[in-house]
């Protein structure tokens, strides 16, 4: 058996690596594992009752009213994901292309596009709440000002517009991130390739679809995967703009809010149940981990190494 002796270097490595390992174990691994364990028990308030196996999972998936709440929140997450895929990542790609092509004012716009990303979610959420205020909001007042008063809406108060208002606020907030990642990807494309393309065609469309898009595939993998995880963990912005209930009448409810409400209760209306909350958290985690892995593997496969 080889002797375990601490050389100077080994000691350093140990000292540097142990604190973060302990930190990760204590604050990441332990909570995940305990949430997993909580999900298998019956809870009365904060007191753990008996082991109930998969009952909590069954309840959140198949027993009313939880079943329709779960379906409702999950559906909204899917809508959010696809909407942001277009509004945030799609727009991000177009913006990146425009910046990369050095259209007039590109320098200024490179900063302007990324600026909202730096703002805290709380600021953005309150800002949009003010914009969309039914009486004094700049949106309704502008609409009235240009004679389109009939378009003025209580944006955050009706089921048909509330979720979309949140989505647009989110897209405005984060569009700079995919823009930046795509732009970095485009700047990595070698000049020789671009020169070669220029010999073949003048069409921007061909250039984008046949050259730029395939070559920024690694950037796409990153922003798609992050968007997926972000869309299904979406919490802060709806929490601030719509409240824990997904107001109005659950039309902005998403899994994050629903999980929080179920586990910790809602001061003005609900019970707290750690068991059901943990079961939801575990399901969300498994779903995100599984789908994100598939997305990553599939998208990686189409990346081209230069």
């Amino acid at each position, binding site marked *: 058996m080889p002797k375990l002796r601490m050389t100077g270097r080994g000691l350093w490595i140990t000292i540097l690596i142990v604190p973060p390992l302990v930190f990760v174990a204590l604050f990441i691994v332990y909570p995940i594992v305990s949430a997993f364990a909580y999900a298998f028990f019956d809870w009365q308030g904060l007191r753990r009752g008996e082991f109930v196996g998969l009952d909590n999972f069954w309840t959140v998936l198949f027993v009313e009213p939880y079943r329709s709440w779960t379906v409702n929140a999950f559906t909204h997450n899917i809508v959010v994901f696809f909407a942001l895929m277009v509004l945030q990542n799609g727009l991000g790609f177009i913006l990146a292309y425009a910046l990369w092509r050095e259209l007039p004012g590109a320098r200024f716009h490179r900063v302007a596009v990324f600026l909202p990303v730096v703002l805290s979610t709380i600021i953005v959420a309150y800002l949009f709440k003010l914009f969309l205020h039914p009486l004094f909001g700049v949106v309704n007042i502008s609409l009235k000002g240009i004679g389109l008063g009939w378009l003025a809406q209580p944006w955050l108060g009706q089921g048909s517009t509330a979720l979309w208002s949140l989505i647009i606020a989110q897209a405005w907030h984060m569009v700079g991130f995919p823009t930046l990642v795509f732009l970095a990807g485009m700047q990595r494309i070698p000049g020789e390739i671009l020169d070669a393309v220029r010999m073949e065609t003048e069409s921007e469309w061909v250039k984008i679809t046949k050259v730029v898009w395939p070559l920024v595939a690694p950037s796409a993998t990153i922003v798609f995967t992050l968007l997926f995880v972000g869309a299904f963990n979406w919490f802060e912005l709806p929490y601030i703009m719509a409240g824990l*209930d997904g107001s109005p009448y659950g039309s902005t409810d998403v899994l994050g809010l629903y999980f929080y409400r179920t586990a910790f209760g809602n001061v003005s209306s609900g019970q707290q*149940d750690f068991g059901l909350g943990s079961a939801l958290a575990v399901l969300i985690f498994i779903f995100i981990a599984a789908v994100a892995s598939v997305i990553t593997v599939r998208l990686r496969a189409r990346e081209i190494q230069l």
Partner: protein
Amino acid sequence: MKFETFEAANYNTILATALAGGTGPDVMMVRAYGGLENVATAGYLEELTTDSVPALADFAPSALDAERVRADGKLYAVPFASQTQLVIYNKAIFDANGLAEPQSWDELVALSQKLKDAGVIPFANGTATAWQNETVTFGLGSSLMGQDFYDALMAGEADFTDPRFTDALGAIAEVAAEYFPDGFIGLDYPSAQQLFASGMAGMFIGGSYEMAAFQGLNPDIELGVFAAPGKTADDAKLVGLYFDGGYAANAAGANKEASIKFLNYLASQEFGQAFANMLSNVSTVPGVTFDNALLAEVNDLNKSSIPYLMLAHFRYGEPSGSVLIQGEMQKLFSGETTPEAIGEALTTGLAAWYEPFQN
């Protein structure tokens, strides 16, 4: 004696964790109704009787019920304050328009119209914040629903499809559509408070706890309160009444005798009077008088009340009556449901755990 306070939003969690870990306080503030049960059913609280705290014998039964566990009917805390859901109005605006407190629903509608014609928003309320829907419903509708409906509901003879309940919802929605601010379904709670406190609106449907908030936002505002009227002037004017919380003793505390002695003080008129004077809240201790004229008026209104329905009786299971009424009223206000459909939705929804609705 050591006194510690915690932030309200995390109080439940902090208290429950301390109690579960055996480091809980000797005497503590607890919530009422369903919130009390979370702590009490776990066996952390000492049962109180009129032997250990004699002053409790004179407390209002409804106040004591708020601190009882339903399953065994045992009492666990000395209730400290009540809150009242009613209509708060701006006296200066009422005087300027020659208005008086309404005696019937028609009078309420007429005075709202008068305010609207005078360019004042009649009601400041908005319903984008979910829990405000419940406040509006019972602050405005308790008299329309009436004592008879409440009694029948409690006796298991009526459910929420009862026309006394659904008609009230219809009347509330009509008033809201006509006399709440433009786009009120998108107006959140803080904005609604601002509208009223700044004098842009004449009335605010809310809890008695709002009065201090309005006076804080605008120290010059002169407030009045009334119970929203019933259909005719002969109908009893009822406010929605509930109890906030109570003081309880730790069943596993080391100084139990001293704790009970202290609870006796907390149930005394001396404490109740100090509580009312210093905290401007309606103390539940019987015989307390109020320096603050508004508080005295609220205390008078409380004599004719029904419990704030969903909190007092329907927050013991999921889905809670509060969650249901809040969402359903938002639908009603945006024209996506009818009062009758709400009656159905509440009754079938609550049947998931409320036994009287299960057959």
